[in-house]
């Protein structure tokens, strides 16, 4: 019964700086983000991104961390022992075997967002698989205040993953498809992710197209997230991290609700946590940490 293809996952990949020679570098810092759904490892050389990997998280997190760093180091000639300081973050942050220190993903996402979208960013939204964080930070990416969804996952990435699986649509396509509707349908009411499935089925049975269902879910999610953001106060220069940032179906609708545009960045929003962790590692190195 279980679908073999996992539509809900983002594709894995690695990136490496085309011409940087890390051996010239003085400081080599790494950030590892072991999330509930995906893991990223990112290496900074003298504060500049040298390489990173974006993999799925297995249910065995120590391996996830190892796999992620191995993927990032692949063909670079660099080895784990070359990492001078490593910070782990995410759900599995305490299980990164080679990490020198663990820092929460809340601090890391803010710091990463600050690097990716500039010092003017004051509000960061991170929508992970398990929870949704609204973060307020200062010009250095230091968290000044944050809110997380309480005991309800409506408005987390999970909802979208459930839809992708149910409708057998790769998660990366959901956003665009959600706009291919004649008119915006009523947002769905279901607040419980576990029931979203049956609700969607019900809608399809009553003749809704897949795209309409997607549209209804995207707007419902955008609305819930906007409420969370409303509680922390959205300021201009607002940035979205995590997989959800790649879903225009939610981002555009959220921007409409809030009446402001999210800052765009050339970096993959999914690496924000690992990047932030790496930047902390780099700072700690400069402060002479061992």
């Amino acid at each position, binding site marked *: 019964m279980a679908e073999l293809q996992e539509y809900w996952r983002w594709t894995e990949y690695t990136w490496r700086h085309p011409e940087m020679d890390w051996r010239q570098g003085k400081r080599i810092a790494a950030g590892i983000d072991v999330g509930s759904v995906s893991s990223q490892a990112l290496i900074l050389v003298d504060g500049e991104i040298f390489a990173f990997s974006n993999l799925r998280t297995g249910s065995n997190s120590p391996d996830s961390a190892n796999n992620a760093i191995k993927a990032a180091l692949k063909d670079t000639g660099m080895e784990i022992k070359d990492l001078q300081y490593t910070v782990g973050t995410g759900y599995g942050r305490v299980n990164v075997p080679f990490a020198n220190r663990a820092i929460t993903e809340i601090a890391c996402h803010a710091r990463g967002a600050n690097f990716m979208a500039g010092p003017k960013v004051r509000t960061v939204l991170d929508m992970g698989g398990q929870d949704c964080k609204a973060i307020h930070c200062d010009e250095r990416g230091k968290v000044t205040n944050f809110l997380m969804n309480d005991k309800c996952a409506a408005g987390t990435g999970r909802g979208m993953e459930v839809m992708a699986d149910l409708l057998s649509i790769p998660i990366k396509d959901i956003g665009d498809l959600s706009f291919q509707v004649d008119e915006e349908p009523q947002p769905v009411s279901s607040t419980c992710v576990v029931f979203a499935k049956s609700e969607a089925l019900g809608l399809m049975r009553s003749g809704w197209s897949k795209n309409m269902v997607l549209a209804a879910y995207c707007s419902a999610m955008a609305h819930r997230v906007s*409420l969370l953001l*409303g509680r922390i106060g959205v300021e201009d220069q607002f940035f979205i991290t995590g997989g959800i940032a790649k879903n225009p179906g939610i981002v555009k609708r959220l921007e409409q609700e809030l009446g402001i545009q999210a800052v765009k960045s050339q970096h993959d929003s999914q690496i924000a946590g690992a990047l932030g962790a790496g930047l902390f590692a780099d700072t700690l190195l400069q402060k002479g940490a061992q």
Partner: protein
Amino acid sequence: MATPTKYPTEALKCWPKAKELRQQYYKDYASAHDRGGIRWSGGAWAFDAVPMGLGDDVHVMTGEPYAASIAFDRKFAQECQDATDARGWARDLCSYMRIYWGSMYLNRFFFGGEFPKPDFYYQTQICCSHAKWDQEASLYEKVPFYCIDVCVGPYETLTEERLNYVVKQLHDSIEGMEKTTGRKYDDEKLIAAVHNECRSTSLWAEICTLNKAIPAPLDEKTMFSLYVLNTLQRSSKQIGDFYEELRDEVKDRVARGIAAVPYERCRIITDTQPPWGFLKIYRYMEQFGVVSVGSLYTFGLEGIFGEQEDGSWGPRKTPQQLGIKIKTRDEALRITADWNLSRPQWQHFYDPAIKTRMMLRIVNEWKLNGVILHLNRGCEGLTVGSSENRLGLIKAGVPVMTYEGNMADEKEFDERRTTSRIESFMETLGLEQIPGAVAAQAAS
């Protein structure tokens, strides 16, 4: 199965009048200041006779009925609740309160224009949410807040000291209102208002008592739009006059055997506020020949009952009927305090056993076949103890169905599940849909 008897039905003549009174009420409140009048807001359970002593141009808007009106407009209701969520208030708080606050925060009045700011808030404290409701509202609007603590235990245990405690607070509140409004308080107006209050609430109890008749002249769905007038301003003469008119019409319906539900063959009561956006579930039950003849909520929220000579439940005798002549402010306050403390819907706050007793009394005197309890997530005050009421009723052999919902937050009501639950309950009561009833509804 043999087709059940079909009773004659007629539209209620008073209906348009009730609607008119409601609309006028909100208009008057919104425009009170333009006419130099006074505006106060608070709970439907506030001692609304008391501010009447400030003059004939005193207008009130009680929070619960206002929020209930909004609940019928699901979109605005949601906007209001979102506005309240956005300020960090918990989603499980009283949904009336969340809607009222939202309307206040958004500065949007449901009946048009900006949210009318009251001159003061006046409230009674029996449910944990009441004081908190107006505490926040008065802080936000920067106006005074007077709250009368009526948590003195069930009426059956009322003592002189307990009554005094309430009366003393009422005296204080009058002084406060005088300061706030700079007006001289008129005891004659208070006395008149107290008489009106007793009359309106006793009349409503009398109307509910007429529903003991088979077929029932009124169904609960209709009663919802009638009992509400007492929640708006039971101490106004207009409202009393209306109930007198209504009482006479209902009496006449009983005399002529006019039914509210044509195929009545099963009588039930419900409990607490219904999910206002989904009153069609009552229509659905009618398809099975089921009539809800009311509830402790529709009866006892604003109807004041008392034991009659024959020991049955009926309207409590008013001071006028008892030939009591109220002379002083203190006498008036003592009477309104005692009268309100005897309110049926206040007793369960202390002990569900009292409510179970009252419900069983209704089951017998109103000749019921079952009870449907609404586990209302929107109102912990009226839902408190419901589970014990269910056990008590079942123990007494009464078929009970419960369903979860919320009077004003549609996210917490599931129409499909509730309907199929009702259908199952109908099966246990041995009832099937009546083709005639279904057809009639489809036609209308």
